[in-house]
């Protein structure tokens, strides 16, 4: 057996699935399925538009404006390292809401929302897009006990779903997951702050857009919200044992774009074909090949994966001279007790062995430590050591 086979065997052992779903989890899955399919059929008969208003009033027991708002949307974005976005939250086009509601033992505040015009000025290397919507929500416990810190083992044990929902569209089909969304979160003084983003919702302004928050799952749960297929109304379910509430988003109806919304929904609701040709996705940037270097587009695939990968790396290297340095990312590194350089910026937490990265006498040049990429483009992490031995890290955008 050669070394490669041994390594392969070791990986198979180390990475084997070592946990199984418990019986209770599977029972709850079956139960959820029963409820989901049962509810789907029952809602139309059970709820009328009039009853929905009553349900909404009962489920959302208290509505008030936040008396003490610890962080503004801008400050939350700043704390998450989204400086450009923080500026957008400060713009005239952002809607600072500051509305607090309680449900299921939680106090939820919708701080603010920004999309479209408010983001146009910062469109570019920041990765922020005017075609997206960004919103800030905070969640606290009603009894005053702190939300678990992100470093606590309790963190995430009562997960939350925070998502825009659109009136008239099935919420299990059109929500933050299907709208290419994501979130970032931190906990401060016992309050969890979450910045969410997804494809822009302004185009749906004429339909009515909600911001939904529910506890008990990171995903949309039909147990938490009722959808009336006849009226298109969505309402929190008063029997839901956790938090379930909706905020109406005060979007400017003049910004609705029914034609764009139609096209968007057609694409979003399209069932993926099981025999579709390979295509690029958020994680699957086009594989670089061909005459990549010097071009501003990743070159086409040649079909030879190894060659493609090499050419992609070559292409990425060729983009570095035109890359944009994220100024805030330029930081002097720290060191651990083994002498590794530690770099920590905006989620990049990297430990690099110095001797390997900077052979004796190598100073001045920026050395590439790694590339990464997503929908917003490619980035490269670099390190440099000056003549005094000071090592700095930085991140460049390679758009």
């Amino acid at each position, binding site marked *: 057996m050669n070394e490669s086979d041994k390594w392969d065997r070791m990986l198979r052992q180390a*990475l084997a699935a070592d946990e199984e779903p418990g019986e209770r*989890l599977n029972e709850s899955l*079956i139960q959820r399925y029963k409820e989901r399919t049962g509810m789907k059929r029952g809602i139309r008969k059970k709820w009328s538009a009039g009853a929905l208003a009553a349900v909404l009033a009962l489920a959302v027991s208290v509505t008030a404006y936040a008396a003490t708002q610890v962080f503004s949307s801008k400050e939350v974005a700043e704390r998450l390292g989204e400086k450009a976005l923080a500026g957008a939250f400060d713009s005239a086009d952002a809607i600072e809401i500051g509305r607090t509601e309680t449900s299921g033992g939680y106090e939820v505040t919708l701080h603010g929302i920004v999309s479209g015009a408010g983001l146009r000025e910062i469109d570019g290397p920041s990765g922020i897009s005017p075609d997206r919507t960004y919103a800030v929500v905070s969640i606290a416990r009603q009894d005053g006990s702190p939300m678990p810190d992100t470093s606590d083992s309790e963190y995430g044990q009562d997960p939350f779903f925070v998502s825009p929902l659109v009136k008239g569209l099935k919420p299990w089909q059109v929500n933050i*997951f299907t709208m290419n969304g994501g979130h970032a979160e931190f906990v401060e003084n016992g309050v969890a702050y979450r910045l969410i983003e997804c494809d822009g919702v302004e185009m749906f302004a004429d339909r009515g857009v909600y911001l939904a928050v529910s506890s008990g799952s990171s995903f949309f749960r039909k147990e938490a919200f009722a959808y009336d297929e006849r009226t298109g109304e969505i309402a929190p379910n008063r029997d839901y044992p956790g938090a379930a509430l909706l905020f109406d988003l005060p979007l400017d109806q003049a910004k609705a774009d029914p034609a764009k919304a139609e096209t968007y929904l057609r694409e979003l609701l399209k069932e993926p074909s099981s025999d579709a040709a390979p*295509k690029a996705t958020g*994680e699957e940037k086009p594989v670089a090949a061909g005459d990549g270097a010097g071009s501003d587009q990743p070159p086409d695939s040649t079909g*030879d994966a190894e060659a493609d990968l090499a050419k992609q790396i070559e292409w990425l290297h060729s983009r570095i001279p035109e890359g944009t340095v994220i100024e805030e990312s330029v930081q002097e590194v720290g060191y651990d007790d083994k002498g590794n350089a530690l770099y920590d910026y905006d989620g*990049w937490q990297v430990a690099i062995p110095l001797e390997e990265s900077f052979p004796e006498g190598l100073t001045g040049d920026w050395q590439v430590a790694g590339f990464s990429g997503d929908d*917003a483009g490619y980035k490269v992490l670099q390190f440099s050591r000056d003549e005094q031995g000071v090592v700095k890290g930085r991140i460049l955008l390679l758009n």
Partner: protein
Amino acid sequence: MEIEELSDLVKKHGKSIYGFCRKLAANQADTDDLYQETFLTAMEKRDQLDANRNPKGFLLSIAVRLRRNHRRKFAWRQRIAPTADLGDAADRLRHPGEETPEEAVLSRELRGKIQAAADGLNDKLKIPLYLYYTADLSVEEIASALRIPVGTVKSRLHQARKTMKERLEAESL
């Protein structure tokens, strides 16, 4: 009938799907959610599931997509290079001949180090790696689930192994 279908699906593939979700999710609550949502989504797409000759691959592709949509942009921030002490893991890697494969029941520590190195990979490398080693899919099945060419899967698996090995060795220095 549908319930039986779901039970059967869970019975046949639950363990693989759960193991895969556990590798990708940050904690058990997220694992449970991703696991359940994978099956619930699969049931909503039953027509495709029935037509698909590889239900396990179909389920795994749903799990990958759900997780990707959940994280997308912010996935960046989760890509953390392993900073744990990987010292003797690399020693073991450098001298693989000292143990026969039959005896090579990995120590808990070494297993942890290898898992940390895998966790530190970016999604492009990590997902095929877990599909291959955790979910036991073949290269062809991974290509079909991720809708990428077989050659790309091979290349990513190769790159994942190489990167992990380098990191484990570098950490021991």
